């Protein structure tokens, strides 16, 4: 690895840290939200938006050949908003209006309400189908963009996710990449206890997908895997990103009872200290 790449990687890690802090501030101020679900996916979103994977123009948000990013796990909306603000889609000031009256910064994303928000999500299990639709639409329009869908692991329990997986392979959507934020927890407990997904890799493979497993907090590994996915032909690809729910804040990590909870100001101060360490 050359020194400039190392510098880049350091920059990306610093960006990821800032996204985590933004999510903390947004949700603590709103006194609600799902920070732990944002923190497990922070490196994934960093790699996509700032690691040279997604092609976009923040000053032309609906640029027809932009790559699409669909946040299927809509409860990670604060992370999406923080990334869009960092990418220059809208001023950072808007972030502090999360969940406030008369604000476009809705608790879960609503299509077109903010520049860069591609899809309405929040009822889980629908994002991958939308992604297939975007691929088919791009094909009909003769455009060569790629479509990225970030899935939660819990929503892989939904039948529709597998309907979409079937359709993605059937239509040979090789411009479609799904990334599963496999943080191993859903709202009420460990996935393995509540509704097991394993053998997870086998499931995707048997549905006709190109599968890679990756450390979902290793930005460099994520970028490498996403690039490899771009080279796949004739089938869609999925990254099973192994992550830690609440990553970055020790007392939130891997504790599912934090799923739909924001940190109070005192807890947030402790979290900030840890994140800045």
């Amino acid at each position, binding site marked *: 690895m050359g020194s400039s790449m190392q510098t880049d990687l350091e920059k990306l890690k610093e960006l990821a840290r800032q996204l985590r802090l933004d999510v903390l501030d947004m949700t603590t101020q709103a006194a609600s939200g799902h920070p732990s679900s944002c923190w497990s996916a922070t490196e994934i979103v960093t790699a996509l938006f700032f690691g040279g994977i997604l092609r976009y123009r923040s000053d032309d948000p609906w640029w027809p050949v932009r790559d699409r990013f669909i946040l299927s796990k809509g409860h990670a909306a604060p992370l999406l908003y923080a990334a869009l603000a960092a990418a220059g889609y809208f001023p950072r000031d808007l972030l502090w209006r999360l969940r406030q009256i008369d604000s476009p910064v809705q608790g879960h994303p609503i299509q077109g309400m903010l520049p860069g928000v591609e899809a309405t999500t929040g009822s889980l299990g629908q994002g991958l189908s939308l992604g297939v*639709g975007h691929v088919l639409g791009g094909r*009909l329009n003769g455009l060569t963009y790629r479509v990225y869908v970030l899935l939660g692991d819990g929503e892989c329990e939904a039948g529709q996710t597998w309907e979409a997986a079937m359709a993605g392979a059937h239509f040979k959507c090789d411009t479609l990449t799904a990334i599963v934020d496999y943080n191993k927890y859903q709202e009420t407990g460990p996935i393995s206890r509540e509704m097991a997904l394993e053998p997870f890799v086998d499931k995707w493979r048997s549905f006709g997908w190109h599968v890679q497993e990756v450390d979902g907090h290793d930005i460099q590994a994520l970028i490498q895997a996403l690039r490899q996915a771009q080279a796949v032909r004739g089938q869609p690809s999925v990254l099973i990103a192994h992550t830690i729910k609440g990553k970055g804040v020790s007392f939130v990590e891997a504790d599912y009872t934090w799923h739909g909870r924001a940190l109070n100001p005192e807890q947030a101060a402790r979290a900030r200290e840890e994140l800045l360490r």
Partner: protein
Amino acid sequence: MRLGERAGLKPAKPMRDVFGDALLEVCRKNPKVVVLDGDLGNSTKAETVRQAFPERFFNIGIAESNLVSIGAGLAACGFIPFITSFSSFLLCNAYDQIRLCIALSNINAKILGSHGGITLGKDGPTQMGIEDLALVGGWPTFTILVPSDPTIMHKAVAAAVEHPGPVFVRSSRVAMPYIYPPDACPFEIGKANVVRQGHDVTLIGCGIMVAMALDAAAILAEEGIQARVIDMHTLRPWDVETLAAAARETGAIVTAEEHLLQGGMGSNIARIVAGIHPVPMRFVGLNDTYAESADPEDLLRKYGLTAENIAAAARQAIAAKVART
């Protein structure tokens, strides 16, 4: 007696065949229209497009949730998707998908629910869309169109494509007679058509019940009762003006629909009329019941959806009006 015979209406082919023709027509005119099918294209007649424009036709299989969300994705790419299946399967299976990705997102997508009502007949209550209008009513951004004759179906499908935003169009397996001459059929979304003038009572129908109401008006005319008949082809936005005029000028209203009474056309009209100019009303429709497998005519008779039922309801409404004055 054949539907529309008393009113002197000419017979036509089944509405689903008319829909297939209408869909093909809009696909010819507008290259942005794409058609999504839930593996029922030969029943809904959406398959006309599969033959003519295979690249713009997608059979998503027996997976209504996926069908709707893929359609929403295509809409986000600038296409105008016509998402088609049986009304009951599409709305009941994919209610949340339509709510989230179409209604709440307020995108330019069209839902075609075929086999509305009980007149699909022998396949029975599992396939019948008797709650579909109530379900679509639950999405505030949806325009709701219920064509009553072949010409209106063509106009409704074309208008759905022209109208930006979510539109639901109801189709049926059954044949509905010609109510309008093909060259003189007024159609504007949200503007109901008065298809018969009268001052004693107003009969309001949608879909097949418009022809039925015209038959009822013919029965009533023999008794010296002049009924106004309204084709309420749009159930949102409501034509409040035409309803207000009917209430004021005729003083009694009967609604008739091939749908459950709860949450359908009649209950909504009652809400509107009550707010402007309350008059005695009676309601023809399915009263808290599922239907069964049988010949459509037998079903209409057993479940109280005939011209005689409408005429009887009209007499009651008129009697209530007279009692009040």
